[in-house]
């Protein structure tokens, strides 16, 4: 170290705006990252009720008919691309499904209840839900695809897309931050070119000269990162409060868990790290052009 002596004065102003840039970028990146994590949790929750299965409901009409109609439903399902298998639930399984609602004694055992067919989807093939729904309805009037699950499947696909965009945004923010640091360091380097050239010719190692810049960049980045994190945390807190007030079961999954908080705390660290290493490499690059 230089023993507390500032060999490169940081009076150029080139570094003064850096904390604010880092603050804004950490803020944006933290929001994007928390979005990715929240969606990830959401998707996992939504998937738990899905996992490649669909349910087809065959309504109870005259009970004599029901078995035939179930058989017809099974035949159609098994001949549809994208379906791996279809099994009609038996009485015991129906009873088990109803038990949470009516208790083990099942006081409604004599009522006509719809029969359920469990459909296992072939994840390698895309299933055309609309086509299947139309075919079923034609052959077995009243048969109904459980389209809630279809909708969830589409929601998951959308969520994955949004996640991808958010991650790409984080990468872009990191790149923009690195570019800003490069410009700031280059500006300082050109203002203090004489000092840098002198240190170089006096036998200062590249790493020694780089240290004068990278430590400053690290400090600026850490300051800005802290501000950005506080802003992001406040924003997320307000958001989570607003979500909590909605009675939307799907959004329950979007709350921020402890993992999210740990990852969020890592965002300003990454920001400061990018500032540090970018400054270091920029100085090395400039020194590399000296004799």
């Amino acid at each position, binding site marked *: 170290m*230089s*023993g507390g*002596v*500032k*060999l490169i*004065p940081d*009076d150029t102003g080139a570094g003064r705006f850096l904390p604010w840039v880092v603050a804004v970028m950490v803020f944006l990146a933290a929001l994007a990252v928390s979005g990715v994590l929240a969606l990830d949790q959401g998707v996992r929750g939504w998937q738990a009720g899905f996992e490649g299965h669909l349910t087809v409901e065959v309504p109870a009409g005259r009970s004599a008919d029901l078995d035939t109609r179930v058989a017809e439903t099974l035949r159609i399902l098994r001949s549809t691309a994208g379906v791996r298998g279809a099994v009609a639930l038996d009485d015991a399984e129906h009873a088990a499904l109803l038990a949470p609602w009516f208790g083990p004694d099942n006081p409604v055992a004599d009522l006509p209840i719809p029969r359920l067919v469990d459909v296992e989807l072939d994840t390698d093939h895309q299933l055309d839900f609309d086509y299947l729904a139309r075919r079923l309805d034609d052959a077995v009037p009243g048969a109904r695809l459980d389209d809630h699950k279809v909708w969830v499947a589409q929601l998951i696909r959308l969520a994955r897309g949004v996640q991808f965009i958010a991650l790409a945004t984080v990468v872009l923010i990191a790149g923009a931050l690195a570019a800003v640091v490069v410009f700031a360091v280059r500006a300082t380097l050109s203002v203090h070119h*004489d*000092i840098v050239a*002198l*240190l170089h*010719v*006096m*036998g*200062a*190692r*590249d790493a*020694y000269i780089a240290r004068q810049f990278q430590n400053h960049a690290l400090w600026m980045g850490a300051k800005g990162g802290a501000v950005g994190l506080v802003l992001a945390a406040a924003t997320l807190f307000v958001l989570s409060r607003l979500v909590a007030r909605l009675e939307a079961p799907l959004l329950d999954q979007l709350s921020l868990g402890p993992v999210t908080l740990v990852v969020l705390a890592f965002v300003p660290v990454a920001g400061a790290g990018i500032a540090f290493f970018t400054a270091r490499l920029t100085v090395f690059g400039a020194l590399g052009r000296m*004799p």
Partner: protein
Amino acid sequence: MIRFENVGLRYGQGPEVLRDISFHLEPGSFTFLTGPSGAGKSTLLRMMYLGLKPSRGTISLFGADVARATRRELPAIRRRIGVVFQDFRLLDHLSVLENVALPLRLAGEVERRIEGPAREMLEWVGLGDRIEASPTTLSGGEQQRVAICRAVVAQPSLIVADEPTGNVDDAIGYRLIRLFEELHRIGTTIIVATHNQPLIEPFDYPRLHLEDGQLAGGPARAPALAAEAGLVG
């Protein structure tokens, strides 16, 4: 110690500023580099302290071809050379004391062994009461003395001084040359560039004379000079 062989230099795409420079300085020798303004003295010294790469030819320092040194080896070689720049190149944002202490810091010296030697050097050149001042508040001659202190404080093996007496009156100039003489006596190799012929008249050291980018008398005179320099060492 220092050997130039057929060294030529051009700045960018410009004309050759130095041509066919060949000479050899023995370890512990004292040499004056003379020549009119614009002859190329500073340029030659710049190559000697590794501030500039020759366009052609080879330069050996401390017995090794510097072109073959790796980038990692260069800083250590540079730290063995103390340079007095023609334009001083003091750091204005640091105190006089910190300027002189700089080579010790770069050498990785421990903190308590930095201030003492720097202070001692400054007292020696009569600036003991200005150590906390900013170089910008010093006169040209005072700055020159600070620059000389910085060049010699870390006891380099080679001292390269470019017009170290350019901004002082002849009395102080004479004393500064005597300072270099002291260092020469303890074994330091010294080369001093100057165009002040009368000032160096009393000193009986060999001279390299540059004229229009060439050593006067041409390359053929180099061996004679080397022999002369060797006698002194």
